Each structure stands twice: as C-alpha cells, then as structure tokens.
C-alpha cells in the first residue's frame, strides 16, 4: 500500500504501541498533524513544547513505556531541549518528533529552520534528520529500539516537510532495526561475578547502594532477595526511591546531600559497597577524596561508561542488573549481619528527636508536615511528581514510597518546571492512579500554563504548591554559604487560588497544619484537577545537608530541640 510520509509516521507509531502523544502543531509538522486524525492516537495539546517533552518523560517514568512528544521546526524544536536533556540525564525513554523545513531549504536559514539534530546531539542517545520518505519507517523503528535498549534515553527524529508529503510503498519488515551487535559484547577490563560474590561473602559491613537502574531493569525483587539473604542493609538514591520499599526493614533510607546522616555515616564506615544501577553522582558522594575510604566496591550498571567514572571500584560489571542478580542469587550464602545492622541503628542516635515530625505543633506550617500528612492521607499510594528544590528533598524524606515508579522527579538535570507537565504525562499513562504534584511556588510559575492542558484533557491531578515566597533551596544556600545575602531569591507570585479559578480549577489556601487534611481530602474527592496553595514557613531549611564538595560524613544536622528551640 502506498502511504504518505505523514501516514507512515503514524502507522509506525501505532505499530510501536503508541496510544498517546504530547505535542504542539506548526508549519513544518502540519502534514503529520493532518494525517493524525485518521489514526487511533490521543493527542494532548500542550501549552509550551517544553511541557510536551516533560509529559512524554513523565509518561515513560510512570509506565515504563516510551513517551512520544511532537513539535514543529525551529522554536517548537528548541523549546523541547530542556525536556530532552532532563530525560537524558535520568535515562528516560522518549522519542521526540520534530518537523523540519523542506529538504531543499535546509542550510538556507529558512523561516523556522534550526539545526535541531546538531543542537540535541549531546543530549540524545541518537538522533535522525530524515529527508526522504523511505527513511521514515526505519528511523522510527530504530528510534524506539534505541530509546528502550540498554540504558534508556531520548531519541529525536527530525523529518522534513517534503518527506512527510511524499508517498512511498512501505515494507515494514525491511524497516526492522539493525542495531550493532557490538552493543553487548564484554570488553577487556570488565569485572567477574565470582569476584563480586567473593567480596560479598567475606564482607563484615556491606551496604547496597540502590539506584534508578533497579527500577529500569525491573530488578526490585532480586535486590530485595539479595539484601534479605545476605543480611545487607540498603541505601537508596533519589531516583532509587521506590525500587526498594521504604518500609522494608533493611532499607535505611536515602543517601547523599540531603540523605539521612546515619546512611551517609554507614557508607563511610562500610567495608563493601554494592552499587546497583546508580552512578556515584556528586550529589551522593560529596568529596570523592574522602568517600567510602574503607570500602571495597562492586559496581553493576548497564552503561559501561559509568564504571570507574567518579569512583574507582574493585569489581566493575557492565550488565543488565536483573540478569546479573538472577545469576548471583543462588550463589549467595545466607548470613546474619546483626552487629552491622545494630551499628547503623546506633548511628541514628538522636535523629528521631530532631525529626520535625516528632516536634509539637508550634503554630507554623512546615512543608515537611504537609508532605508527611499527604503521605498518610493518600495511604502512600499516590504517584507523586515533584519539581526541584526544597520541597523535592522534603518529599524524598517524608513521603514513604513503597512501590516503584511512584516518585517521579528530575534528579540529574534538576529541572524546575518539570513537575506539572510530567504529572500530566504520568496521569495519562496511569489513569487509575492518584497523581499529586508537589511543586514550589518558583517552579510552578515556570510551567503553570500547563494547567490549561490538564483542564482541556479533563485530568484528575492534584497540585500541592509549597509556597514560601522564596526560591527556597537557593535561599538556603545563600543563608549557609553567602551570609544570608538573598540575591534574587524572594519571589512574588499570583494569588494561586484565583489563578486556578481562572482556569476553572477549584482551589484552596492552607495556612495552618489543622487545615491540611481537610484541603487534601477535598482535593482527592474532586475527580478533576485541583490546586492547594500551602503557604508554608518562609525561611525553612532542608536538613540534614552535606555542603557541596564537603566530606559525606560532615553533615549539617537538624537542629536539636534539646539545645535549640523548635521555632528557630
């Protein structure tokens, strides 16, 4: 059958299992939009193309399926760049399709022409400039294969307008992806499973560092079994949250800059680190010169380029995590490491006393309380999508995630404005799940136009704005490291409730802790988008904290109520 390039595009997407796309039309992608109407595709009209990329990303993170974003040439394509870079850093499989000016106009600075394949070269796994109708089907099939393969990530396909308009016979079999077989070959220098098992068997103080790769590989059960069988405690990264249930007795909590002090101390005292699907980011290691000096290290990651990058390890294994652990598990000898576990529990010390959740209500509304209440009221069962900053860290600390893919957050790139669009993508991927956006008043103002998208799509998303009138995390750094000189961090905003009202969205304003439960329950009852403006303590601080580049064990602890007043 002869199809136009635009028809081939949609036919290929449908064949890849695509049911939803996030996009914005424009001149160079018009032929594709015209053809779309004949295909069983739900198109979500975004308000800004950055939102389209974040929605595709949120869709992918919530479901594990490839998310698809579509935009026109020039500004449509460049607006997606932040979303593509976000997906790249957090290994999220998305395919972005952009229109391009006609092939004869390429290089002529035509209207809305931009070199988007050149621009996105370092922030995609791969990209294509498709100028011929015959190349469309193979490019799409290969793009989906690449987005999913190995360490997932974004792929961009730029299709010229004339390629969309031309017609061709399609041979779907001939369009099958032919990826290089070299991809999975072992290379010299790769570590050996036997070396890893020997280290695990003899370690006295081992610790599993659980990362995003566990969820990506679907190795949640295997990691839990490894920990339980060998009696090894687990520390999680920000993106590793949910990969191991927060309520699991061996899950010690989050590591890193705003991780728990006892977790970081345990890393520094361990004699073996088993890093699974994580990449020793600077936000989890602190000063590399003093990082885990007493520990031997095993690193399993599907991306060989991550091995021995930041931290030199003793055994480096480039493999699919689930396949590797399936092989290890029968060879793990059960071991009781009660002494080491007791040591970690002892490291907690007075942490519980310092925890803001255990302090009496002093009349102030703290973000940590809001998030902890949200966790209780949603029974820990919601998909929470956060933005970036203080509220993100409080979410990680005070919402206890027991299931994978239930926390969606921009970790690597730290993209403000991510939360609302990513939540829209997550809700469309998982319509039966309760979805909460937890977002600061700064980040919300970056992409709040997408409220209109949520309304137009009649989505039931609840938005909790943690509103403190500051770019809070930056303000915190200014407080600690710049002598409280608050340069450009006080931020005003609209009356968020009235703003929501103008979108036809019900809203509430919460100023005291007593009002939290009522507002959250009311939002949950409404089967439509709702906004709550939580006006929280303005100069609140995320504790504990490892200052950037400082030693991991030298944390700024939470103030102790015994020596300081809770109101400080």
């Amino acid at each position, binding site marked *: 059958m002869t199809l136009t390039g635009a028809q081939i595009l949609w036919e290929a997407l449908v064949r890849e299992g695509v049911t939803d796309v996030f996009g914005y039309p424009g001149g160079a992608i018009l032929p594709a939009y015209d053809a779309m109407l004949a295909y069983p595709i739900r198109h979500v009209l975004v308000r800004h193309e950055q939102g389209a990329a974040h929605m595709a990303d949120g869709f992918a993170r919530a479901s594990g399926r490839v998310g698809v974003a579509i935009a026109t040439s020039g500004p449509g394509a460049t607006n997606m760049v932040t979303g593509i870079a976000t997906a790249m850093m957090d290994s999220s499989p998305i395919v972005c399709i952009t229109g391009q000016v006609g*092939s*004869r106009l*390429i*290089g002529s600075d035509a209207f809305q022409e931009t070199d988007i*394949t*050149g621009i996105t*070269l*370092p922030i995609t*796994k*791969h990209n*294509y*400039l*498709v*100028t*011929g109708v*015959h*190349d469309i089907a*193979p*490019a799409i*099939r*290969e*793009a989906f294969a*690449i987005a999913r393969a*190995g360490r997932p990530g974004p792929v961009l396909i730029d299709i010229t307008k004339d390629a969309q308009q031309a017609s061709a016979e399609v041979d779907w079999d001939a*369009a099958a*992806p*032919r*990826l*290089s077989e*070299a*991809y999975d070959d072992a*290379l010299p*220098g790769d570590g050996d499973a036997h070396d890893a098992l020997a280290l695990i068997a003899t370690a006295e103080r081992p610790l599993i560092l659980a990362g995003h790769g566990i969820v990506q590989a679907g190795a949640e059960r295997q990691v839990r079994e490894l920990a339980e069988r060998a009696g090894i405690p687990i520390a999680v990264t920000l993106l590793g949250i949910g990969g191991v249930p927060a309520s699991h007795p061996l899950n010690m909590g989050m590591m890193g800059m705003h991780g728990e002090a006892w977790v970081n101390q345990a890393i520094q005292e361990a004699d073996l680190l088993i890093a699974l699907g994580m990449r020793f980011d600077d936000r989890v290691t602190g000063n590399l010169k003093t990082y885990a000096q007493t520990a031997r290290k095993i690193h399993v990651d599907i*991306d*060989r*380029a991550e*091995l*021995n*990058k930041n931290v*030199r390890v003793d055994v480096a294994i*480039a493999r699919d995590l689930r396949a590797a652990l399936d092989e290890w598990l029968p060879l793990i000898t059960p071991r009781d490491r009660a002494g080491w576990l007791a040591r970690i529990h002892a490291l907690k010390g007075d942490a519980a006393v310092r925890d803001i959740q255990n302090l009496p209500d002093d009349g102030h509304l703290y973000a940590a309380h809001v998030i902890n209440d949200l966790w209780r009221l949603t029974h820990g069962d919601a998909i929470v999508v956060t933005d970036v900053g203080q509220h993100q860290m409080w979410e990680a600390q005070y919402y206890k995630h027991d299931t994978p893919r239930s926390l969606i957050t921009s970790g690597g790139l730290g993209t403000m404005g991510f939360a609302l669009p990513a939540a829209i993508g997550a809700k469309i991927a998982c319509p039966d799940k309760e979805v909460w956006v937890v977002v600061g008043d700064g980040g919300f103002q970056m992409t709040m136009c997408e409220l209109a998208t949520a309304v137009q799509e009649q989505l039931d998303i609840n938005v909790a704005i943690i509103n403190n009138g500051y770019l809070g995390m930056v303000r915190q750094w200014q407080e600690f490291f710049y002598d409280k000189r608050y340069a450009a961090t006080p931020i005003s905003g609209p009356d968020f409730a009235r703003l929501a009202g103008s979108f036809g969205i019900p809203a509430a304003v919460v100023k005291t802790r007593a009002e939290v439960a009522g507002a959250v329950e009311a939002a949950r009852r409404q089967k439509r988008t709702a906004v709550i403006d939580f006006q929280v303590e303005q100069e609140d601080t995320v504790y504990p904290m490892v200052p950037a580049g400082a030693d991991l064990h030298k944390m700024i602890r939470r103030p102790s109520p015994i020596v300081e007043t809770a109101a400080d």
Partner: protein
Amino acid sequence: MLHTFAVYVDNKPGVLNRVASLFRRRAFNIESLTVGHTETDGVSRMTVVVDTDEYGARRLEAHLYKLVPCRRVDNITHAPAIARDLALIKVAATGEARTHVMQLVDVYRARIVDVSPESMVIETTGTEDKIDSLVEVLRPYGVVEMVRTGRVAMARGLVNGRRIAPRTGAGAAASEVNGDISSCSV
C-alpha cells in the same frame, strides 16, 4: 599517555561530528584523528589518538560503543601495530641548498614530488618521530609550508580478523542534503 584507537563507523552523514562531539563533550583531548574508507563498502575507519589514562581509555571505548553508527572499537595502544603519518613539506631551497636537501631526502627515504624555481615539496611517510626529525633537519633550509595527515595505525597479524559487514537500515542511504565527509583528518 597516548592511546590509539581504531574505530569502525558506518559511513553516514554526520558520523564524524558525532565522534568529535563525544570527545569534546567528555573533555578528552584529541591528539590526532584521521578517517577514510576501509575494505568494506559503507564502513569507514578512524584512527584516533587521545591523551588519557587507562580508565579514561576504557570509558572512551564504552562511550564510542554507545554511538549508534559506531561498529567496533579496538584500542591498539598495547597491540603490536604499525603506525604511520604522511607529510608534505615545502622547502624554499635553491641553488647549493637544493643539493643538501636532496641528500637529506635520500637519507630519510623520502621523495621529492614537486620542484619549482623557488621551492620544492617533499613527501614522506613514517612514524611521527621520523617525520619530526626530518622536519628538524630541513628547517635550516626554510620550511615554508607543511601538512600532515595525523596517525593512521593497524595492528600486525590477524588478531582482529573479524570483518565488519556493511549495515543497511535507518538513514543508510546517504542523504544528498547533508554532505558526508568520506575522508578527513584532524
């Protein structure tokens, strides 16, 4: 130390850019990079020389494999290999000096490939050391212009006997709008 990689890539538009961009983005310094056709249609071979340590070399190899058009990477730094550089050197030698230059060219087994009233062009191949040394002895006669290819290298024997088959698939057909570079060196 200097590491030498033989990198087999699909001969497709933009591949050189992808490889060069990878080195830039990951902050590796390219000492030299050459690219040209191989015995297999559709497959080009790059010889890349990079100053890095063993860990860096391994990471670079892993990064190269992540490039979709990259078919195979051989780190031939420690393998017995033949490495050659080609140079064209223009010397402003006239009269008496010309005889001296011709003798030096003989000693270095180089060739004179062009002679004009004011200058002569010498062609030589060899290791970088040999060419450096020839340039040094020619310098007093007035080296007015020089061009070098950068290192090309090949492992000895049949250790890497595996042949790379040409690949068809997405974008396999060279595009007429995005001019390909079939050979080039840095």
